[in-house]
């Protein structure tokens, strides 16, 4: 018989609480530093990048906004949305309709777009939650709403049916109409501002009481309700925020590409992009969607360019249409297989050790 004494279970670190607080505040400091970096990059990038790459940089911003939006609802809110195209589309279409048919400035349109999208997100989520849809069922319900919107807009004459909207071209830069000459860095700067706003919203939300409550709800709904947290309300708040931010991406898309149609706006490719961005970067992390966007958005261009300028021994590959998409798909799959928690997610969990 061994003779060790009998002890009660002891915590591994008696000073756990203090450590928790310290990491928390060091996290916060890092967030501000990174945000500053984003701002600096946003201002300076147009001076560094060749003009042709600016449209890729724009795509990074648009993807990042969609990813941040999706991540709020699905990563922090725990509601897996497979239909974020709905909010992206509402943002773009509201702006386009108000601009082309009513003559309102896109800034105003953007405001309405954000409001409508937030409203739609709240409404759709309310219906889906009211009827207790969960997991894959919730996902497919949101998917169905996005599809319905797409079909509705496609069949709707007042919204130009399948033709969509083209933003009237104005020569020169006009802040009022949110239009600048092609290749103007101002687009990118505005995008950067949107991005920073979205990141700030996420940061402050996560730090706020409402944000904490939302995370509690995500971790365990029933337990959250048991300590007096109104579950539905917090889910709807985060869904609304998510929809609004995604709508920003819609407006930005419209003003930059100057064209929108039902397939682009409400097609499942838009939903997929939001998910891909967040998953590659790290679901449920503040910086995941941005990092994901930086990887994913240029990926298909990189694949295409790589093939266009293929080295001699691979030149038989160039000009094979579809190959670039295959490469894109392979990179995507490898990314997810190697880092199932996403880039930021993996980084954080490594550091935690």
């Amino acid at each position: 018989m061994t003779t060790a004494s009998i002890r009660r279970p002891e915590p591994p670190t008696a000073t756990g609480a203090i450590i928790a607080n310290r990491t928390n505040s060091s996290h916060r400091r890092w967030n501000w530093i990174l945000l500053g970096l984003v701002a600096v990059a946003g201002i300076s990038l147009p001076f560094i990048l060749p003009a042709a790459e600016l449209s890729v940089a724009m795509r990074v911003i648009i993807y990042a906004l969609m990813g941040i939006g999706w991540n709020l609802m699905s990563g922090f809110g725990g509601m897996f949305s497979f239909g974020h195209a709905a909010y992206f589309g509402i943002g773009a279409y509201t702006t386009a309709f108000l601009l082309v048919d009513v003559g309102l400035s896109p800034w105003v349109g953007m405001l309405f777009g954000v409001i409508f999208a937030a409203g739609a997100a709240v409404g759709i989520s309310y219906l889906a939650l009211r009827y207790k849809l969960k997991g894959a069922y919730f996902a497919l319900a949101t998917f169905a709403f996005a599809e319905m919107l797409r079909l509705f807009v496609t069949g709707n004459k007042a919204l130009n049916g399948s033709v969509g909207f083209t933003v009237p071209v104005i020569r020169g830069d006009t802040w009022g109409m949110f239009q600048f000459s092609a290749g103007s860095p101002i687009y990118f700067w505005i995008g950067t501002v949107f991005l920073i706003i979205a990141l700030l919203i996420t940061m402050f939300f996560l730090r706020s009481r409402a944000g904490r409550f939302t995370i509690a709800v995500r971790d365990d709904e029933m337990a959250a309700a048991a300590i007096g947290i109104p579950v539905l309300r917090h889910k709807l708040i985060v869904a609304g925020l998510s929809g609004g931010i995604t709508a920003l991406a819609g407006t930005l898309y419209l003003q930059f590409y100057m064209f929108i149609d039902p397939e682009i706006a409400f097609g499942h490719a838009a939903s997929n992009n939001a998910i891909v961005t967040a998953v590659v970067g790290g679901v449920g992390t503040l910086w995941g969607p941005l990092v994901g966007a930086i990887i994913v958005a240029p990926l298909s261009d990189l694949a295409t360019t790589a093939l266009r300028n293929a080295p001699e021994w691979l030149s038989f590959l160039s000009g094979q249409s579809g190959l670039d998409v295959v490469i894109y798909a392979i990179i995507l799959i490898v990314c997810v297989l190697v880092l199932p928690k996403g880039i930021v997610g993996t980084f954080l969990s490594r550091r935690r050790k």
Partner: protein
Amino acid sequence: MQALTTGFLTGGIYSLIAMGLTLVYGVLHIINFANGAMVALAMYITYAVVSGLGIHPYMALLITVPVMFIIGALLQTTLLNPIMRAPIHTQLLITIGVALGIENILLLVFGPNPLSVRLPGNQGIHFLGATVELSRIYAFIGALVLVAALWVLLRKTRIGTAIRSVAANPEGARLIGINVKRIYVLTFGLGAAAAGAAGTFVATFTTIEPTAGAVFNLTAFVVVVLGGMGNVPGALVGGLIVGLTEQLGGLILPGQSPLLAVFVVFLVVLFAKPQGIFGRAS
């Protein structure tokens, strides 16, 4: 009448395509976005076999089904087994990647021209005041046979019970000696084989393009949810509902896409019975 008959037969086709999807979801809890692409792949295999060997299209089933089974099994082994514990969106992303990959590899190999497979002796016949093509009736019968086969497999055989055990509780299955990963591989293989059978049947009356399967993706999702995810006979009924709704919806809402009616029905059912028509409340 025509709408009813067509709706019924189209519904059969939808359930044929949704069968693999529902099986994979039921056991692996993966939303397989690549199901449509796998159907397209099977269509191309059918084409290659029929035009290469000159055999009857339905004989191609002897090749598409096992080949698709192997492809599915390989996909599961290499891509999905490593991330079975990951959250649902991570798995979804893999299947999106697979879908893109398959469709574009088909484009690379077969080129963009639409191809077709002719069913000898295919003709329209009159049936209850409507006209239908034989190939669609065969496809419908194919759907019935497939449902029956899968049902017998899952309900009446030992391996089928093992598959359902894994669906119910993988850990428990492992602890009593079932090789869970192998069951996953088997199931995804079966799902792909079902997509293979669907591809061959559908190939006889539609044009074969890389995206030919993806057009069914939306409807297949709806069918699966209506029938209750993971419920094989449910997929048949779900398919029929969608087929009929689509045809009748086209009559009721001309000018709007008939799919709109389908989605309306979809949401109504989803809200009324969140687990699908046959879903058991758990």
